[in-house]
């Protein structure tokens, strides 16, 4: 096989180059202290990150934050871990919400609340939006700085609604309406399918459990300990996925793959409704050729209570073991991005949630939400329901793998290979194994 050889031969010059680069001494020309910031934002979001960093760098003269995109979330985390093991860790690394437990238990991070305390920088933590802070706090202390947070919402095609004789100003509120509207959309020829979804586990399992105040896992969704087991194969989960699988047969629901691969189903007009992260508002504004609106995620109604949805996205973690003066730069940067003007700018530019109540209030005062009502849907959903232990978030080890297991079983269920009960039982059994393994690896 020539490939392994070419790999070796290609890697050698690369290695030599890498070594050579390491040997080049940091230029003494600038006296500014450099802060390395690794992230996973692509496209427009990458530009927004660069712009934000530029604003910080120009706001003061002591520190220079250097943003570097390291690939996907998973790749960024893997790169940071590898760098940490070589004692070359960046100061700040962006980690997705699913990696929270891994980071908290890593022993490799400096919690932000501690960093700010050490640097005597005052941050009004109480001003942060509760569902965002809750996800990333331990014992009431914030461990990582919320950066890009979003929550899933419902998008609907207003043109298709019009064509189907539905009121384009009224998105469905309940799942019953979703079914009814879907049938009308299909019958009238306005769309081929009723609705689809992005991020199957995050939206349809994690968030649906939170929204209906159902536990996802034991120990308060993992917040109270490592000895955790999933609870998604109980009455609510089974009933719900049985329904989705049945709808899949009638095209009321049309599965479109994991992550964002189903986006084209909505953008092409194939499906009249779509559940996806609120951060997609910007993308849909550019990409959709029809009028669309947003609504909150549908609810099943009684007997289930209504709680808030949970957030997704990523936060910024501070790696420990850096000299105090560099930590000071890190702290000042994190403080800068959490300040109200930056939060407002970030929200308006990217569509990610503003994380402080002051920023939201200011946006409201500036009529931002009047002009962009879709931007308010997510805030409304996060504050409308009751915040309960079930809606605070999830704190699970190896969560990425667990999501993968859940999504694989969801596919088995939608394909009709397994009943909802069977699929969820299998997902729970496999996930519990993974959780046990994580607990064992972290208890030593």
């Amino acid at each position, binding site marked *: *096989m*020539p*490939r*392994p050889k070419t*790999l*070796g*031969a290609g*890697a*050698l010059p690369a290695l030599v180059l890498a070594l050579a680069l390491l040997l080049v001494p940091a230029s003494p020309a600038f006296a500014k202290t450099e802060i390395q910031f690794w992230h996973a934002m692509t496209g427009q979001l990458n530009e927004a990150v660069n712009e934000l960093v530029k604003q910080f760098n120009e706001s003061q003269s002591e520190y220079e934050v250097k943003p570097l995109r390291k690939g996907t979330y*998973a790749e960024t*985390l*893997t790169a940071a*871990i590898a760098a*940490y*093991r070589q004692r070359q860790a960046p100061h700040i690394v962006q980690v997705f919400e699913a990696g929270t437990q*891994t980071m908290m*238990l*890593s*022993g*490799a991070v400096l919690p932000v609340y501690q960093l700010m305390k050490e640097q005597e920088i005052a941050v009004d933590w109480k001003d942060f939006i509760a569902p965002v802070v809750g996800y990333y706090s331990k014992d009431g202390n914030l461990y990582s700085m919320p950066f890009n947070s979003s929550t899933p919402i419902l998008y609907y095609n207003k043109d298709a609604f019009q064509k189907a004789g539905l009121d384009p100003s009224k998105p469905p509120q309940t799942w019953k309406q979703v079914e009814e509207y879907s049938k009308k959309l299909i019958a009238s020829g306005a769309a081929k399918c009723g609705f689809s979804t992005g991020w199957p586990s995050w939206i349809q399992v994690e968030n649906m459990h939170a929204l209906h105040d159902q536990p996802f896992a034991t120990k308060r969704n993992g917040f109270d300990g490592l000895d955790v087991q999933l609870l998604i194969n109980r009455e609510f989960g089974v009933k719900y996925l049985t329904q989705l699988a049945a709808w899949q047969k009638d095209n009321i629901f049309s*599965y*479109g*793959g*994991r992550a964002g*691969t*189903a*986006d*084209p*189903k909505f953008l*092409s007009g*194939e499906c009249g409704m779509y559940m996806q992260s609120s951060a997609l508002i910007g993308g849909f504004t550019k990409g959709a050729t029809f009028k669309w609106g947003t609504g909150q995620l549908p609810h099943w109604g009684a007997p289930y209570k209504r709680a808030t949805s949970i957030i997704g996205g990523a936060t910024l973690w501070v790696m420990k073991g850096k000299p105090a003066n560099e930590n000071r730069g890190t702290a000042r940067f994190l403080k800068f991005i959490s300040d109200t003007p930056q939060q407002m700018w970030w929200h308006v530019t990217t569509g990610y949630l503003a994380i402080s109540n002051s920023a939201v209030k200011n946006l409201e005062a500036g009529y931002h939400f009047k002009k962009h009502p879709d931007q308010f849907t997510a805030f409304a959903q996060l504050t409308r329901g009751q915040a309960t232990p079930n809606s605070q978030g999830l704190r699970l080890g*190896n969560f*990425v*793998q667990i999501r*993968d297991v859940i*999504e*694989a*079983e969801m*596919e*088995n269920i*939608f*394909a009709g*290979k397994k009943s909802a009960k069977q699929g969820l039982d299998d997902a729970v059994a*496999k996930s519990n*194994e*993974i959780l046990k*393994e994580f607990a*064992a*690896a*972290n208890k*030593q």
Partner: protein
Amino acid sequence: MQRTVFRNRWLPYLLVAPQMAVTVVFFFWPALKSLQLSLYRVSPFGDKSTFVGLENFTRLLGDPDYYRSVVNSFVFAAGVTVLAVLGALVLAGLATQKIRGLAVYRTLLLWPYGIAPAVAGIIFLFIFHPAYGILPYFLSFVTAYEFNWLLKGWVAMVLVIVATAWTHLGYNIAFYIAGLLAIPSSVIEAADVDGAGPMRRFVAIIFPLVSPITFYLVVLNMVFAFFESFGVIDAVTKGGPGQSTEIMVYKLYKDGFIGLNLGSSGAQSVILMAIVIGLTILQFRFAEKKVTYR
């Protein structure tokens, strides 16, 4: 075989040293490292690590998902090897005919090999994706058949097999073209005179004469399918739907680099290595006897 005699005893060692150094640094050392990792339970950041003996292996052997990935690997490797080798032989046969524009055809046939597997995967996505692929779009005009491999496991498997085989076709074709051109025309002409048709000539003369190449390609394509097909799978299916296209090397990547379970990942790579070494030995033992070397 001619024996080359070096005057200096150390010269031959010196000459192979660079290649050996690369092999040791990039193959033996990582292999040993995996072997070591496979016996430990390691936390993601590597700060906590305990010796667990063979626990990573026993856990895998008790995991039905792991067996599925093994079966998937064999199905996938067999599919890719058969398709890529046979396809290459047929195409190389055509590319050694006396036709106009031969050089152009040959160049075009070799092209796909220059495409990175991940890029090939993306190209296939743009053709076959149920939501935005061009093929399902055209299919929807002529038939009600829904080409949705997002939920049909076997269709997804066929898709990744075809995509992977396609990326490797060019390499195989190059070998076959060389092999076919090396067959003396006198042998073929003699068979022609004896009244053998094209099929008979192919089965009785050409195929045996290129059998060393076939053997070499089968071994290489199989190893390729087991070890290096990661890019296509990652780009096209990510192992789904369900676990339908999760082959061993992809599961290993997912558990190790996304799940950060390095111990299990190490154990998986040791097993994978053992399987591939075993298969290669088997092939050399049994298949090579049927190969005619000139």
